[in-house]
């Protein structure tokens, strides 16, 4: 299992670097803003009108804002490393609590969107891969290109206008019932499927054209048996790799989709925190997204390792 450990190490390093860069960005931002930092924190904590010189000074001492910059930076990195991100400047809730609350919504939406996207893309991609150039393939490719050219908020607006405003089947925004999940998840799924359907199709076409498939038939297998034995596994390798890359698209997707549908997930939290300059929350949300991305990449690496003995050999060398 040495190769798996090496991958784990590489992805852990990726996560650590992401966290470091994020922490540095946030630190630089906090200190680069014009005006007195202690004053801003005080204003955020007790409200603009009630800020006094005393509270400002107390906060300056409490938060260590009077120390040299390098010391503050080290202290900040230490806090990030231990996961202690303090309180939101806006809601005054602990950042962890905020993230746990909003993360739950995003997790549900993301999982559902991902699942639906593969429910669409897998059968369609395989069907297209078996008849490249056929009518289904042409129609699918055309739709996929069009969908890939639409930012996710446009897909969402389209779905809202059709299903919520014209047909009135589904609620346009909100989060209280299962019906509220349908449009956001579908928006996300369509955006994901636009890319994965082509990756799946190309993987299937490529594998079907591979000489080892022909050779398996020369050795006496039927076409179906050759595909079952040799095709599925080989086609799964690029698809698994792409599934991890797609997480990047998911981030674009859920940030925008949550804002569009007024859905209280991590993306909405992040954007609102950015607009309100709520640095601890931005830091927390960014950190979670970066770490999950590293985790997803690790899973994809491990899947490829299990599927493809060549990668295992290369990783072991």
């Amino acid at each position: 299992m040495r190769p798996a450990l090496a991958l784990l190490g590489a992805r852990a390093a990726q996560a650590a670097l992401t966290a470091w860069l994020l922490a540095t960005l946030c630190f630089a931002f906090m200190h680069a803003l014009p005006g007195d930092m202690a004053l801003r924190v005080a204003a955020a904590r007790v409200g603009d009108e009630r800020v006094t010189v005393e509270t400002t000074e107390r906060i300056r001492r409490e938060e260590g804002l009077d120390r040299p910059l390098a010391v503050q930076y080290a202290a900040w990195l230490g806090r990030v490393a231990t996961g202690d991100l303090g309180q939101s400047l806006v809601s005054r809730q602990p950042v962890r609590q905020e993230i746990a609350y909003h993360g739950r919504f995003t997790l549900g939406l993301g999982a559902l969107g991902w699942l639906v996207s593969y429910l669409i893309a897998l059968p369609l991609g395989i069907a297209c891969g078996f008849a490249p150039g056929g009518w289904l393939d042409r129609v699918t490719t055309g739709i996929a290109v069009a969908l890939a050219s639409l930012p996710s908020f446009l897909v969402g607006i389209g779905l809202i206008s059709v299903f919520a405003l014209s047909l009135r089947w589904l609620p346009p925004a909100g989060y209280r019932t299962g019906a509220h999940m349908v449009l956001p998840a579908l928006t996300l799924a369509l955006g994901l499927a636009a890319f994965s359907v082509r990756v799946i199709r190309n993987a299937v076409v490529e594998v079907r054209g591979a000489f080892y498939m022909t050779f398996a038939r020369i050795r006496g297998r039927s076409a179906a048996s050759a595909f079952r034995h040799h095709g599925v596994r080989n086609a799964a390798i690029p698809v698994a790799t792409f599934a991890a890359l797609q997480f990047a698209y998911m981030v674009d997707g859920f940030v925008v989709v949550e804002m569009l549908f007024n859905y209280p997930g991590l993306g909405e939290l992040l954007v609102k925190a950015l607009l309100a300059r709520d640095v601890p929350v931005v830091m927390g949300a960014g950190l979670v997204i970066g770490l999950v991305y590293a985790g997803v990449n690790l899973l994809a690496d491990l899947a490829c390792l299990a599927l493809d003995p060549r990668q295992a050999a290369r990783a072991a060398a």
Partner: protein
Amino acid sequence: MSPLALVIRGLVIRDGHGATVVADVDLEVEAGGTLVLIGETGSGKSLIAQAVMGLLPQGFTAGGTIAINGHAAVDAGQAGLLRLFWSRETMLLPQEPRAALDPTMRIGRQLFERTGRGDAVAALQAVGLAPEVAQAYPSMLSGGMAQRVLVASVLVGRAPLLIADEPTKGLDPERLDQTRDLLLSLGQAGRALMVITHDTALARALGGRLAVLREGRIVEQGESAAVFAAPRQPYTRAWVEADPSRWRPSLRCCAVDAPVLAGHGLRFGFRGRPALFERLDIHVPRGGVLALTGPSGCGKTTLGNILLGLQAPDAGQVSWAGADPYRDRAALKRLRRRYQKLHQDPASVFLPGRSIGLQLSDLAQVAPELDLSSDLPPLLERLRLDPRLLRRRPGEVSGGEAQRLALARILLMKPELIVADEPTSRLDPLVQRETIALLREVVAGEGVGLVLIGHDRALLAATADDVITIGR
């Protein structure tokens, strides 16, 4: 009398544009007999194999009939019908053995799934492989092992007719002998063989019947031994004589000049690996030919690069007429253009997409003494190159022309030493002979030193004054 294993009548193959690439081919393979089909690149010999297997590339069409193992003759255009013979009647030994194996599945599971364990082990042993190979993934096998694995899978199969498409393409001499022995053993096991090759030595060793193909037509066929002993057609005769083992040895030149190139105590190894060679001494006199040979991966090409100042050795010195290019930067700058290389793939020494003539005149940017208008025409004439070729781009000239143009490019720089790295391994025998003859002429005429890197022992022995074997 047992029926013939393969009868091809009036086979015609047309490419996607409707041009005829194979015409009027009649061939027969007796049950348990061997037929060798030889011809140069582009003669259409692989297409005949593909037609028999029903595997012609998309867009190609075939006419004529093919009868296999006594079954009723099938229209050659009916690829679907020919595919019904797969595995039970016909079997293919593919050109690229590794591409034929699923990279994600162990050998045993994909090739010997329906064979008893004992039979599989016996088949692997018959080709000289340990039974553990069944547990290996294809990527763990060398090309030669992959080929033997495929032969083993053929041994456990039933197909009486085997078609081997260029089984020795790109192999070094040791593996070449192995492959020949494997094919011979298949023949002895009673299988009928149709072997496609451009290797005359292999054709000679396999015996049986021989058919010589040229531009899609059979120019001569008969018993192999008889054809080799007394070829009737001029084309066949040229082929037989182009075999390096038939060449007259070179006139040993007796230059006693100071060596134009020398290496002392050379050592080189890739990081973390044992040294490829150490304490190697080399010297090449003006007008002398030194051959370097050895199995693939032994470091021949690397040694060539070390001698050319491209790759510093781990230990030892290189001397260019007394100056060390790795330590004396002034000498490197002064002598750089005098030490040149002739590459294996001649067209690729020219930048794609730019006319060859322009690329030759580019040389004036770094070689101020070069005067193309006076130097180039006599050179082209000597190398029998049409000046109109200079207007073409690298992809638009033939392999032989490209090699002569590459030689012209080097000679413009008035070299003192040329390292020729397998300069003819991708050329057909006739062009190979011509190119080597030209190189010999240059070496003798201009007093250039030549380091010839290659696999073909007979060719090297006939060309070089001295042969150094590297590795093991």
